[in-house]
């Protein structure tokens, strides 16, 4: 083996993971100095799900001794890229390279063997076992007799914990730890398995300020020891503080890889959102009527607080924000899912208490859930039956369902929403994503709602159907319904909404009229950069 190959050990140990069609990487040169081969990189990886391109020829490079930010809007492709680099998904095209060698990872275990460790927002631990066993599971130090050496496991763990400044011991049961503690356990596990790349997905989202500071100093120490750290976060302040380079993704494409020095928040925001606003549905001006529903200082412990806004008849209110903004939780609270800890809801000026989806339906509220596969449709039963579910009573006489009414109702909606299917008796799961979404719409519109809450109504559906759904949403508003549109796609939000409310980590951080809203302004609010300006304007 050549002397200048720092990766011989990994290469030998897991030679089977290295692809047969190995192509030596081109040396990266910069000026006089030859830069180190990246610890982890991708070469034009692509991935699509059901015709939707999640990643298109993305090449990224994460180097040893560097903390590297990976940023982008929701749906920009960060999590798909992460899953490819940790062996959860296999790319459709392109390669993943570890220390310059093409690798074929078929499972997260392969990634671990190659020294790639991932730490998720909600760490995957064994709550019933103690810290030491969580760290050394399947790798317990053993005597020659195969008996576990508890002495050794506890000593090694104590040394590890001391080195990362943990405030618990090797024997502490993991169920007694808070999220920060569980994260430390995962980091200790990564260190003990000699991980050379650490992917951290929103690691600070459930930590307190002090815990974040501790985590950052630990990250810096790991970096100084030669670990490549990939830091995925929506918190630009933290990115400016702790990272050295940044890679920006947008719509599944690589936008830029640049050093953080000299970068501004505004520039980052611009890279995250800067896309042309063409080819989108543009709705007509709204005929805004009276206030239908008002939320006054709604709060839900651990999710959101002091949420106040009105929905008016004939108006589409867009609710923007990034992952963790808790927009879905607000919509669900209005739909009677999840208990409220404070605040009031008034409908037509009267204070109401909505305790269940059934109660919400009686007030004329319909909710189209984010995950239609799980929450929106009963997959195995027919399209017609799905459409009749929320309003079974109107299809029955004396407790007996009238199949004729069910089928006629379905045919009406199929016609109105242009749902493409063979027969209304077809099982819902046989339809394409876009058509399933239309069935969910029909299901709720059949309840004749006055207030329609739409949670990511066009996620994962093709462009053509998307335009149709946009047309439908506009038509709902024109009929005089009050519409709340949750969307993570900025262009959609900007094109469809008469007013835009932006949330960040459970708080409203911006309110904009259709005229005021630009991609940059909305993204700044979603990132929490515009709060001060907004507060001033509100006064």
């Amino acid at each position: 083996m050549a002397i200048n190959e720092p990766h011989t050990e990994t290469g030998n140990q897991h030679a089977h993971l290295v692809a047969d069609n190995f192509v030596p990487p081109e040396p990266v040169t910069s000026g006089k100095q030859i830069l180190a081969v990246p610890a982890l990189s991708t070469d034009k990886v692509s991935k699509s799900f059901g015709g939707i391109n999640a990643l298109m020829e993305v090449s990224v490079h994460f180097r040893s001794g560097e903390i590297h930010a990976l940023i982008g809007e929701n749906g920009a492709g960060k999590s798909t890229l992460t899953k490819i680099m940790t062996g959860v998904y296999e790319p459709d095209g392109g390669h993943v390279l570890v220390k310059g060698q093409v690798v074929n990872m078929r499972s997260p275990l392969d990634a671990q063997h190659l020294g790639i460790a991932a730490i998720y927002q909600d760490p995957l631990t064994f709550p019933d076992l103690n810290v030491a066993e969580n760290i050394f599971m399947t790798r317990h130090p053993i005597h020659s007799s195969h008996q576990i050496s508890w002495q050794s496991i506890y000593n090694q763990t104590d040394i590890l914990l001391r080195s990362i400044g943990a405030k618990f011991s090797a024997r502490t049961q993991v169920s007694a730890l808070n999220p920060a503690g569980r994260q430390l356990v995962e980091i200790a596990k990564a260190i003990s398995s000699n991980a050379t790349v650490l992917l951290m997905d929103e690691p600070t989202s459930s930590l307190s300020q002090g815990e974040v500071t501790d985590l950052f100093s630990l990250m810096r120490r790991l970096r100084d020891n030669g670990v490549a750290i990939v830091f995925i976060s929506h918190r630009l302040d933290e990115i400016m503080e702790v990272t050295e380079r940044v890679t920006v993704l947008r719509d599944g494409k690589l936008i830029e890889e640049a050093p953080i020095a000299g970068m501004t928040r505004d520039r980052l925001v611009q890279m995250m959102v800067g896309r042309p606003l063409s080819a989108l549905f543009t709705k007509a001006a709204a005929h805004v009527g009276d206030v239908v529903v008002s939320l006054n200082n709604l709060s839900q412990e651990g999710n959101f607080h002091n949420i106040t806004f009105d929905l008016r008849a004939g108006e589409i209110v867009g609710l923007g924000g990034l992952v963790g903004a808790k927009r879905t939780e607000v919509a669900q609270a209005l739909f009677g899912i999840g208990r409220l800890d404070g605040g009031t809801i008034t409908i037509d000026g009267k204070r109401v208490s909505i305790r269940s989806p059934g109660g919400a339906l009686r007030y004329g509220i319909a909710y189209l859930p984010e995950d239609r596969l799980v929450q929106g449709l009963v997959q195995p039963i027919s399209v017609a039956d799905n459409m009749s579910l929320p309003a079974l009573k109107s299809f029955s006489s004396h407790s007996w369902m009238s199949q004729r009414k069910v089928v006629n109702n379905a045919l009406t909606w199929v016609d109105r929403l242009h749902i493409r299917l063979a027969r209304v008796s077809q099982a819902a799961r046989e339809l394409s994503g876009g058509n399933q979404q239309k069935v969910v719409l029909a299901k709720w519109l059949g309840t004749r709602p006055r207030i329609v809450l739409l949670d990511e109504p066009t996620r994962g559906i093709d462009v053509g159907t998307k335009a149709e759904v946009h047309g439908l949403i506009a038509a709902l508003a024109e009929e005089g319904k009050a519409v709340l549109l949750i969307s993570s796609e900025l262009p959609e939000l900007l094109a469809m909404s008469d007013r835009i409310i932006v949330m960040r980590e459970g708080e409203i951080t911006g309110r904009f009229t259709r005229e005021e809203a630009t991609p940059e302004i909305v993204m700044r609010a979603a990132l929490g950069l515009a709060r001060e300006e907004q507060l001033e304007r509100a006064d």
Partner: protein
Amino acid sequence: MPQQMPEGPRRSTLSERLLTPTRTREAYLAGIVVVAALLISIPYGTFLSASNISEIIVDSSIIIIVSASQAMIVLTKQIDLSVGSVMGLSCMIVGVTAANHPGVPAIVLVLEGAGLGALFGLVNASIIAGLQLPSMIVTLATLEIYRGVVPAIASSVFTYQLPNSVLALARGSILGIPRLEFYALVVVILVGYFISQTRTGRELYAIGSNPDAAALTGIPARKRTFWLFITSGTVAGIAGVLWLAFYGAAETTSALGFEFTTVTVVVIGGMNIWGGSGSIRGVILGALILTGVTNALVIANVSVNWQQAVNGTILLVAVSGNVMLTKRTARRLMLAQRAREKQIAAVS
């Protein structure tokens, strides 16, 4: 030894070493055993006599053997409801062999029982691990099937006159310990060592504690499940032969409802029915409690009809008591950890 050393990462405290949730549960159980035994002995003095205690231990031997393998299965969030039927069927087939061929050595009969059990276990294992079906339903079905075959075999031969070689399997003693108790001791040591001192054994806890994390850690859960059900079948097959030797006969009702007994023992013993925690010591205590109660009811002249109702009540009390104790312990550990964090923060 300095108790307060709130400097950087701390050492394990004494309470952490001794009062793990499992040990706490065992301490409670042991307390219950002692208090209950004393209370029973007030009106029924014979309960705590040496001969009665040794009878309780002998009676609990077969229960401990089968419960030990059941415990390993429950540890991984699974359940084997077919053990009673496997025992009954093994007992009957081996009984017929012994009655028809009195000259066959006892060890061959034990191997026959083990082989039959392994085969029945293989059927469970293949369906559960192969088709990824819930073990509760699969073994409920094989419980019916295996038990249903017993009468067909029984009708052909008279199985009450067994050769002495068979009966000797459950009589006499080894190293001064009654044979059945000796077998139970061997099983307890083997299973206890396996689940507490080997990597593979610890993996069972991991699978039960968080299957997703176990998969990400690279633990082959399906393979483990497969072998656990084969083991469970084998143990039940051998236990069927011991049953034959102990009761001196094979009947269609032999070991009927034994799956209930083992699950009850495992749950009384503090094993989390959702997997991930429990110990072999708990299993022993659970078996002693269940056998002790049965024994006490006999001494107190309570009608046998009440036995089932009492057992069911014990199971309910054990399950709910366990849940409450688990929650309390979890809370206690959490508060203790918070307090220590504060202490460390205050010093540094």
